[in-house]
């Protein structure tokens, strides 16, 4: 198949909806569904009946502002979110009013302005289709230009060409570590061996992070397309998506997408009439955070206890069943199709010097606009929290923002003007992580937050290595004493010692980063620890 044929197909699919002028898009991602989006969709379908042929009620993916769900957008067919009329907190009873407004004046009482910074300040690459196309529709994805990058790669590029574009793009792993994607792909491509694997890490585990979930629920084909391009570039023919069992909707949509892509010939044997064959299988996680670590994840795919093993050898040399294996996370793969389409240089023109492109963040906690955003790398924390996030609700003041989940740290007010990228966050003692941002206000105790994360690491420690297994237990014990004002100054010193040992000696990333929330809160909020010391009153 050539690009022209695919373009014809896309035009054909578009033509099926030629009579449609307006779309009523209902967010059917997990968060809005929990607020009753399915009932809203039903009501809209019923109210519409066979009337209004030029109007189509369509389930779409995440529109970002999860706290205002269920969200419904009324748009001209080709319009994006900014160009649509958005309604918030929609109830089934509002169906008739919304349908009545199509092509006329908006329902003001439900309106959620789309010119507010939350929408206007975003730049969407990963989420470009999210909230616009129907994630269950293969045709919708193709009509929106989907699979063109795969076909382009297969028909017009050599694997080396693809590697060159990915390397030129400067894309770095979105799972948190920030390892250059081009370098990783090239390493796997260079490895000898008939059998290689591609793995998509969709075991999004950081508490407070739901970016990957939204991508999988909103635009599953894009992830498959990225994986297929990766497989072509590195010489793999088999892939696994390791996804959390706690994300049933994402799993369902992925299964549906795989089935349809296979039927259409974008997965399976001889894709797009080339010699390239590619199979994708879903593997369900079973409730183990440590399986986000790549070697533990591979153990889990192999049907074993999800325990990490020492690296090297890295998965690129010896991964799944000892074969060279490429592991990237959902968001990394979701960036691939646009990079191939627009070119590596285009991608590299977005973001900062060392962190290219955009990043999807999940805003949660004590912030007005809870939800999902995508901004260029280098956007300041202040912009994200105060402008896009709408600041702190209930008249409270900002205290800290936590990034990087249990491996990250808390950033105080003083550093809010830091542009967000991999390296700047590292200098602040935290990390990008997968993109969760939890905002805390003056009522949150930082010692308590540190204890919370340590408890998380303690229960998620796999138990293999001694420093992580016993160290997280001991650190948690001291933090617990601190929150109860029962700890002494010696305990605090011991806590700092343990942080150092666990960080330096643990086997995998979970243990090595488990002390980060403690260290960063000690760095910026030591006062709060001091105030908690037994028998001592705060300074």
């Amino acid at each position, binding site marked *: 198949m050539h690009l022209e044929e695919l373009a014809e197909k896309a035009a054909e699919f578009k033509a099926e909806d030629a009579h449609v002028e307006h779309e009523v898009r209902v967010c059917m991602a997990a968060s809005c569904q929990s607020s009753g989006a399915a009932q809203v969709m039903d009501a809209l379908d019923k109210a519409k009946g066979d009337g209004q042929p030029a109007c189509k009620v369509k389930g779409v993916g995440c529109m970002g502002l999860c706290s205002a769900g269920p969200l419904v957008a009324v748009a001209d067919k080709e319009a994006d979110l900014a160009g649509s009329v958005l309604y918030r907190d929609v109830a089934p009873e509002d169906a008739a009013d919304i349908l009545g407004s199509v092509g006329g004046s908006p329902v003001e009482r439900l309106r959620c302005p789309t010119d507010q910074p939350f929408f206007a300040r975003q730049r969407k690459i990963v989420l470009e289709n999210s909230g616009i196309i129907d994630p269950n529709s293969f045709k919708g994805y193709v009509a929106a230009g989907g699979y063109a990058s795969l076909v382009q790669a297969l028909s017009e590029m050599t694997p080396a060409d693809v590697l060159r574009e990915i390397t030129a793009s400067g894309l770095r792993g979105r799972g948190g570590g920030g390892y250059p994607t081009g370098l990783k792909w090239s390493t796997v491509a260079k490895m000898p061996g008939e059998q290689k694997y591609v793995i998509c890490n969709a075991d999004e585990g950081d508490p407070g992070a739901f970016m990957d979930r939204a991508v999988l629920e909103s635009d599953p084909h894009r992830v498959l397309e990225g994986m297929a391009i990766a497989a072509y570039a590195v010489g793999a023919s088999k892939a696994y998506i390791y996804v959390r069992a706690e994300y049933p909707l994402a799993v369902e949509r992925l299964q549906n997408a795989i089935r349809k892509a296979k039927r259409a010939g974008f997965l399976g044997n001889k894709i797009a009439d080339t010699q390239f064959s590619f199979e994708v299988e879903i593997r369900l996680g079973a409730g183990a955070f440590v399986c986000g670590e790549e070697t533990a994840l591979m153990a889990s795919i192999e049907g074993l206890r999800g325990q990490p093993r020492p690296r090297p050898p890295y998965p690129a040399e010896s991964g799944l069943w000892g074969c060279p294996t490429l592991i990237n996370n959902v968001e990394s793969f979701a960036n691939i199709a646009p990079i191939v389409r627009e070119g590596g240089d285009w991608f590299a023109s977005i973001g900062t010097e060392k962190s290219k492109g955009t990043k999807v963040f999940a805003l949660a906690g004590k912030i007005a606009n809870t939800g999902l955003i995508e901004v260029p790398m280098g956007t300041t924390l202040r912009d994200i929290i105060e402008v896009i996030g709408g600041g702190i609700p209930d008249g409270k003041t900002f205290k800290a923002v936590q990034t990087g989940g249990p491996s990250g740290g808390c950033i105080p007010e003083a550093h809010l003007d830091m542009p967000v990228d991999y390296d700047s966050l590292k200098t602040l003692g935290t990390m990008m992580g997968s993109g969760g941002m939890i905002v805390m206000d003056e009522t949150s105790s930082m010692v308590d937050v540190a204890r919370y994360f340590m408890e998380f690491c303690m*229960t998620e420690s796999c*138990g*293999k290595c*001694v420093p992580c*297994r016993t160290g997280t*237990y001991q650190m948690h014990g001291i933090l617990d004493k601190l929150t109860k004002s029962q700890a002494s100054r010696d305990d605090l010193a011991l806590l700092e*010692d*343990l942080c150092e*040992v666990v960080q330096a000696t*643990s086997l995998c990333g979970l243990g090595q980063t488990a002390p980060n929330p403690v260290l960063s809160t000690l760095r910026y909020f030591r006062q709060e620890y001091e105030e908690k010391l037994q028998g001592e009153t705060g300074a």
Partner: protein
Amino acid sequence: MPLPVTPPNIRVVTLKIDDQDLSAREDETIIEVCRENAIPIPSLCYLDGLSVWGGCRLCMVEIAGQGRLAAACSTRVTEGMEVRTSTERLQRYRRTIVEMLFAERNHVCSVCVSNGHCELQTMGQSCGVDHVRVPYRQTPYPVDSSHEMFRLDHNRCILCTRCVRVCDEIEGAHTWDVMGRGSDCRVITDLALPWGESETCTSCGKCVQVCPTGALVKQGTSAGEMVKDQHFLPILARRRHAR
């Protein structure tokens, strides 16, 4: 007896360990080279003849030019590598790790059948653990005496998985494994039922011999009487490997 043949394509590299100039095959790990050259490297999970586990983290060493410490058991030597095995920092970390092991379960050395012959006890002494700074976890564990020849005392287990590996890799029975996660981990036989009821145990006793502490012992031994003998392991491992 024919001399062992070095496999083709395996190069010899030169490296420095604690200022000693050494040469080694490039497929060797740091701990192997150290043991060949009588440079002490502490470890409780590594055992010559079993697969590498990398769990105790006592063999961490410093490598010049590398920010992170490396585990000697799972790091191969490279040309020009400079290794330090016993800096002040490493000693401090090892001491803390051993302390946390003592605090995790109930190692009452004075009344242990392995007293005087226990690798953890010896490790504690050599790391300068004269007391434990962290609080003891104080969780009681059961003792399984159901096997007619052997006994399992979870109170003295350090989860090194030597028993699991020897049973799987050398004996081939895979009677042992680990259940649970984190601090709740426990070694188990079959479906975590009493050892004496195991359908797969061949009573070969290899697990008992490789256990570094008094967790796996012979029935009928009393305090200080359990002496382990691991000389069979490299021999069996070699012969199994040769096949």
